[in-house]
């Protein structure tokens, strides 16, 4: 998974990350946030930092660097699990198109991902199963192999 990614900053507690998405047209401040939900579960969300320190997970950046941005998010996840190896991360897209994109990316790299992590998918009705390629899911759960 050695893909081009952006350098980033991380908070002391390892839960907030920021970096800049750069193109010829614009520079966008990105934020990745890991928030505790219940027990060992954390929600991972990422989006743009808009004015007044407000985070928008839904905005469409269109900065022509999606792969680099997603690779950076993966790097933050590596660092998160380095600090919190016993936690699990839940994530989904802010809309169906993004969720399908995440599913597609996981499907593409699942053999490699599963060397390090276990990945599960959640259907809309909450049914939980080991991630299967090209299956429709509402959300994903990822955590280090024990």
């Amino acid at each position, binding site marked *: *998974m050695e893909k081009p*990614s952006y*350098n*980033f*900053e*991380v*908070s*002391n*507690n390892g839960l*907030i*990350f*920021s970096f800049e998405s750069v193109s010829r047209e614009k520079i966008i401040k990105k*934020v990745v*946030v890991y*928030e505790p*939900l*219940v*027990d*060992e*579960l954390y*929600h991972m*969300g990422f*989006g743009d930092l*808009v004015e*007044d*320190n*407000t*985070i*928008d*997970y*839904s905005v469409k950046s269109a900065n022509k660097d999606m792969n680099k941005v997603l690779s950076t998010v993966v*790097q933050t996840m*590596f*660092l998160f*699990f*380095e600090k919190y*190896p016993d936690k699990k991360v*839940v994530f*989904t897209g*802010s809309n169906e198109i993004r969720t399908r994109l995440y599913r597609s990316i996981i499907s593409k790299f699942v053999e490699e991902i*599963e*060397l*390090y*992590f276990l990945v599960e998918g*959640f259907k809309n009705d*909450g049914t*939980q199963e080991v991630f299967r390629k090209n299956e429709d899911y*509402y*959300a994903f*759960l990822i955590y*280090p*192999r*024990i």
Partner: protein
Amino acid sequence: MKTKREIPKVNPNTYKVNPALDDKKFEFTPETQAFRSKIERFVKTHIKPPVSI
């Protein structure tokens, strides 16, 4: 069963710790807040904690 491998270490030259991020009071757009609430409800409804014996 796949063999477990150590999670790749992030190159320390590619990031730096910024303590200011810990103190920053981030807010969320209303749409993002609704999204966060939705995933939180989903998780609390469907993902059960492991049973302790």
